[in-house]
């Protein structure tokens, strides 16, 4: 369970302060498909960064499994991300000079696994996303959908409890996007919490928990029964 309590986040952008989140309190249940929606600048991505421990709030509390994430050191946050979180980004964010295999293996390689172990697991993960035939390709040689599947395989390889996807279908055509969503949604059946940030109302239709943000505040919050 990920809990945000009265979270504020203010960025400094040039001379102005951008108040991305203004007092957000939220509980994201485990093994659920949560969707965060809202217009641009509503604070969706910021919320996801805080949930994934990529950033720290200006004030407020982010708890995971009863532990306060805001007090962690940079090193501890990195360890938390490595162990508990898998990110999937709109721009895929693969390392350009590494093969699909190495991209997927990257979290394990950084975590100290041997190359053999890491590659073995990467192979399994790529099999899950049906990309075994693209194993040696670099990102530039892969289509958008393939790159996103590589990114999902990378997010899965460390067996994290939480998958955070920021506009995962934003750069994909509808059919490919649907496939990616299906893939993400299926992960909840493996007891993973999947949190998707999106503009896409079709994704929202699948949500166990649907959060609408506007101007850094929660505008509405709907549980599955209501959403469906």
């Amino acid at each position, binding site marked *: 369970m990920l809990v945000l309590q009265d979270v504020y986040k203010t960025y400094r952008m040039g001379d102005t302060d951008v108040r991305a989140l203004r007092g957000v309190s939220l509980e994201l249940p485990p093994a659920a498909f949560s969707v965060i929606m809202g217009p641009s600048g509503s604070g969706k991505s910021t919320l996801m*960064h805080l949930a*994934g421990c*990529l*950033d720290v709030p200006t004030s407020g509390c982010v708890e995971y499994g009863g532990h306060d994430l805001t007090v962690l050191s*940079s*090193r501890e946050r*990195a*360890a938390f*991300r*490595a*162990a508990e979180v898998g*990110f999937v*980004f709109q721009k895929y*964010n*693969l*390392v*350009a*000079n*590494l093969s699909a295999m*190495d991209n997927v293996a*990257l*979290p394990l*390689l*950084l*975590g*100290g*696994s041997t*190359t053999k172990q*890491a590659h073995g697991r990467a192979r399994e993960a790529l099999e899950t996303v049906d990309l075994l035939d693209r194993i040696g390709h670099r990102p530039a040689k892969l289509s958008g959908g393939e790159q996103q599947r590589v990114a999902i395989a*990378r997010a899965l390889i*460390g067996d994290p409890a939480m998958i955070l996807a920021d506009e995962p279908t934003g750069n994909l055509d509808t059919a490919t996007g649907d496939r990616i969503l299906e893939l993400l949604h299926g992960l909840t059946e493996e007891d993973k919490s999947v949190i998707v940030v999106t503009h896409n109302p079709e994704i929202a239709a699948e949500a166990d928990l649907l959060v609408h943000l506007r101007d850094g505040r929660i505008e509405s919050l709907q549980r599955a029964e209501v959403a469906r």
Partner: protein
Amino acid sequence: MSLNLLRLALKNIGSRKTRSWLTILGVLVGVTAVVALLSIGTGVQEAVLQQFEDIGYDIILIAPMNAGGPGRAVGGPGSGAMGGRFAAPSAALVDDSSSGGLFSPDSLGAGSSEAGDAQEQPDRADEALGRMLSSGLDTDLLLTKVPQLVEAGTLGTQIHPVDTGATTGFLRVSTPSMEFLESFPSVLGGFEIAGGRTFTNVAENQVVVGARSAELLQLAVGDSISIGGIPFVVVGILEASDQSVEGAGDAASEEGGLSGQSLAQNLGSSGSADLVLRGMTNTDDSLFVLDERASEVFDTRGAMSVTIARVEPGASISETKDAINVAIGLQEATGTPISIQEVADEIQGTLSLIETVLASIAAVALIVGGVGLMNTMYTAVLERTREIGILKSVGARDGQVMTLFLIDSGLMGLIGGVLGLLLGSLLSLFGTRLLGPSLGVGSFTPVIDAGLVGGVLAFSFVLGALSGAWPAWRASRLNPVDALAAE
């Protein structure tokens, strides 16, 4: 885990080939320069010191004329008076067999210390000049007054007209005594006979010929030649020495002529004690006549002489020198004692200074390479900002990001170091072949020892890592969210 980082860094270097190689090239050039200069410099130093070691550190040289410091003792007064007398470059042998071999009127006039008939009085010789050329020391008296000396001898040198029948010219004639040859062969490069034999009879006009002189004059054992108008028989030809003064600003010898004036020229122009030594130890261009014989048949007033003495093992060189100075005063002679050690120290000091200056210049090249590397790494951090964000999002710690960049730059430094080491070694091997003769140390080998290799490799890796340290630190401190937002 660091092995994984190493693999990742290697992949990165490989994926940016052109820039990586250009960066490596910057380091390579600097390392090449440093390696080449240091190895050649050390090689020259060792070769020069070997020469002194061959002569022996227990030897003290008493050069004529008291002229202050050790380095200047001999040559100080030489540039004027002696230049006029001996240092005419055209005094070199005119090796022209087609025209029958004649020396020019110029050379006859300028180099006429003993030109023409030996009986003829040198018209400009006077007492003062004699004192400049010879200390006038009595070596037997010196040995009794300076108990620290075990043996002493005098080596005279004179320029004489030489006529082989086919070739004529002026040549340096050294006049060691029989005793000198026995006591101090090392001063004459070992005085090793390649053909024939050494002197056997002080009553006969025997000459031993240096290797190059023999070659150019086309002399063989048993040939007759005229030296200073006196007929001599060649009894022996010396082993070629390792060294040569060829090319040391000596146009005549470069053209294949014989540099009979090399000693005189050295004294006249630069006049450092080492050149006296080199003049003596370079036996290739000389003719040798026993002093016992020379004093009979030549007019030796124009001869330059150097007294050589050997110090008892264990005796203090400086105390011995003091005692020699006293003895010189007692004999009312002139001269300055110089120990081989002093000469060696002086030369080594000069060589070290030159080496330091050159190495400093090379080091600048290396620093420039380092700056290039830093620039590359800094740009790489800017370019790879998003990648840094990716690494952090998948759990990379700050330290790992920093290590990744440090390995990256360190590896480029190291590769530049390895290649520079190879190239520098090759360069120094070629360089020594080119430089050996002109430095007058003959053949010598560059010194590329474990210290240089290890030092260069460690230094280039550290240079690489240090150049990359600041960019790497910057990379590691990037906020992952900002880094991911970068284009």
